[in-house]
């Protein structure tokens, strides 16, 4: 195992290497965001990319802990829906009285199909993280999701050092979980 890894507790060589590559990249993005060579909007964009990379590191580490604690075969998602058997009386355009039943289906899920929200929830449900960390990771996820620029309603140019320090502090907490 390379001594200089920032993630020495990860015993999966491929994952550790990929985490180190992502970590190296984000430290260099930070330095670029500190250079007077770039204007404030570009600096903010470097910070945004840094947040996205940090979130991916958080996601990967949480998944690593989840895999250590939970078997894939035990990963199940319950979905409950109300199945209408018969319409009895139409009250109005918006309401009707029906006869029906609640149906619960259990779906098998795979580690490879989990997103950050799923991983965060499963880690909390399995006692890997506290409710406090769960909420922080969720906040990181919301910041990360701003990469979907098609859904944004405001102009994105104000990522601050405070945003970055927040995501780094969460990453640091996740790293210290074992």
């Amino acid at each position, binding site marked *: 195992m390379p001594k*200089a890894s920032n993630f020495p507790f990860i015993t999966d060589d491929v994952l550790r290497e990929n985490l180190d590559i992502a970590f190296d990249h984000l430290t260099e993005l*930070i330095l*670029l965001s500190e250079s007077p*060579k770039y204007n404030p909007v570009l600096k903010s964009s470097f910070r945004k990319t840094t947040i996205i990379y940090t979130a991916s590191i958080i996601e990967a580490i949480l998944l690593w802990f989840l895999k250590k604690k939970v078997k894939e075969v035990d990963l199940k998602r319950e979905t409950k829906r109300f199945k209408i058997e018969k319409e009895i009386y139409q009250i109005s355009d918006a309401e009707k009285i029906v006869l029906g039943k609640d149906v619960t289906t259990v779906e098998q899920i795979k580690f490879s199909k989990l997103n950050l929200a799923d991983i965060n929830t499963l880690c909390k449900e399995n006692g890997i993280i506290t409710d406090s960390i769960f909420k922080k990771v969720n906040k990181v996820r919301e910041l990360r999701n701003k990469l979907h620029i098609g859904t944004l309603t405001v102009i994105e140019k104000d990522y601050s050092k405070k945003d970055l320090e927040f995501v780094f502090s969460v990453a640091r907490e996740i790293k210290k979980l074992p």
Partner: protein
Amino acid sequence: MRTKNSKGQFVAKRFDTKVGTIEKKYGIELGVRSDKKLGNFLEEKGYKSLAQMLKGA
């Protein structure tokens, strides 16, 4: 700049990486001594958690 270990694997940037290495790589100027350690630079700039991660603390 990323380095390789004896097995030829890339290893992560260490706390003692110098600012000058990054300045040279990207053609930027960070306004501090080039032999300043990356972790110290980040900590002074307010990235405390990131600097601590680099230090392994």
